[in-house]
């Protein structure tokens, strides 16, 4: 079996053994989204305007908070160092870990998002766009976030620093995705935004494993 599948299976198995922890980013997502009607206004007219932005920002923060689990436990017990020492290409191993991470944290967000859309009175036309943008965007969040985690995994208090490093890089995804959902609610064409998100995904998919691998080697040295 290729190293990609081996690592993917390993990470998914390990996550399965701590199933309860899978709910944490999801619950954070739901709670944060629920705070906005309480803080801003429960009126459907007001919530409709901010729905796409709120859901996307909450997804962003949930993705960022869940990033720590990507390398932390492997770093602490030394298996990350062993993975870096194998003759296999580290970018492939990294890609496998990121894919596993996305399946565990990103995919649940996408499944729950429509329900949150209903909570915030998101129009039905925008619902499909929300799922599409999340499908295209959350892998980018995992891939680009992996670069940030790789840079800070060796630090003692790297948590807040991680947000500082990773959030500016998330901003293009946020802008295009939230804009796409907003515009689709009015019925206009959003193919431009979706193509841009696809371009960001392609860019991240092809280049970020190399950056993450280089950052890991630096953190492990």
């Amino acid at each position: 079996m290729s190293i990609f599948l081996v690592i993917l299976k390993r990470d998914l198995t390990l996550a399965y053994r701590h199933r309860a922890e899978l709910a944490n980013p999801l619950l954070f997502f739901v709670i944060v989204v629920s705070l906005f009607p309480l803080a801003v206004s429960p009126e459907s007219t007001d919530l409709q305007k901010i729905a796409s932005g709120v859901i996307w920002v909450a997804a962003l923060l949930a993705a960022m908070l869940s990033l720590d689990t990507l390398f932390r436990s492997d770093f602490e017990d030394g298996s990350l160092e062993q993975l870096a020492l194998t003759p296999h290409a580290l970018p492939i191993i990294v890609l496998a870990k990121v894919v596993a991470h996305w399946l565990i944290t990103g995919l649940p967000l996408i499944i729950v998002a429509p329900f949150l859309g209903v909570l915030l009175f998101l129009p039905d036309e925008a619902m499909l766009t929300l799922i599409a943008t999340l499908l295209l965007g959350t892998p980018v969040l995992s891939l680009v976030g992996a670069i940030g985690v790789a840079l800070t995994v060796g630090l003692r208090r790297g948590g807040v620093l991680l947000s500082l490093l990773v959030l500016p890089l998330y901003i293009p995804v946020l802008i295009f995705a939230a804009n796409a959902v907003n515009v689709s609610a009015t019925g206009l064409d959003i193919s431009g935004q979706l193509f841009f998100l696809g371009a960001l995904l392609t860019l991240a998919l092809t280049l970020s494993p190399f950056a993450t691998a280089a950052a890991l080697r630096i953190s492990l040295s």
Partner: protein
Amino acid sequence: MWAFIQRFASPKHFYRISGKMIPWLGWTCLLLFIIGLYYGLILAPTDYQQGESYRIIYIHVPAAWLSMFVYMVMAISGAIGLIWRIKLSDIIAACSAPIGASFTFLALVTGSLWGKPMWGTWWVWDARLTSELILLFLYLGVIALNGAIEDKRIAARASAILALVGVVNIPIIHYSVEWWNTLHQGATVTKLDTPSIHIDMLIPLLLMAFAFKFYYATVLLMRARCEVLAREKNSHWVDTLVNPNPPSSAEGHSTNA
């Protein structure tokens, strides 16, 4: 000639050569500032639309140009340090970050001060202002990462990767006024066409741009020299620099009489 270039990359020779360059760069910078500001604030004609308050352009535009230029210097010298492991490159990258962040902040603040009378608002979330703000965040991230890692060599390599990942923002800032409908005006100088600004306004702008560049060079060399001393503090040449007259063994004994 190759040996001359290679010697410049050695911290010891860099310290000596930059020490000689700083007065030249500094006085040129001051001269350019005086001439540029006099030309720009007093001699340059009044704008037909904006009146006198357009003159903040002579600070705002050079600061913005420098914010992008310094980021490129930081990213490129970070890449050189990453690939060829040249210590001086790491030092240049680390010292450039705060200077670049200051230029970015200056560009944002002067732009805001200009926007209030002209656009009627301190801020607008259009593509150029937003991407310049993201540039500030990227600078702050690099500074934070550099400070968070104890070992300076590892810190330099980590922040080089971060700077390189963020370099994609620079063309976004530059082309933002072309790609999006922005409130910020389009490119007047940095484009493949004749500048769409009057020559009497363009000359002080270019003078100020050079003044800012010389300022960056002066301050960078000053900071880099301090950083070189700090990082090389255990080496012999720093020791002889700090203690030019080491106590000989005879003097050492004489105090124990």
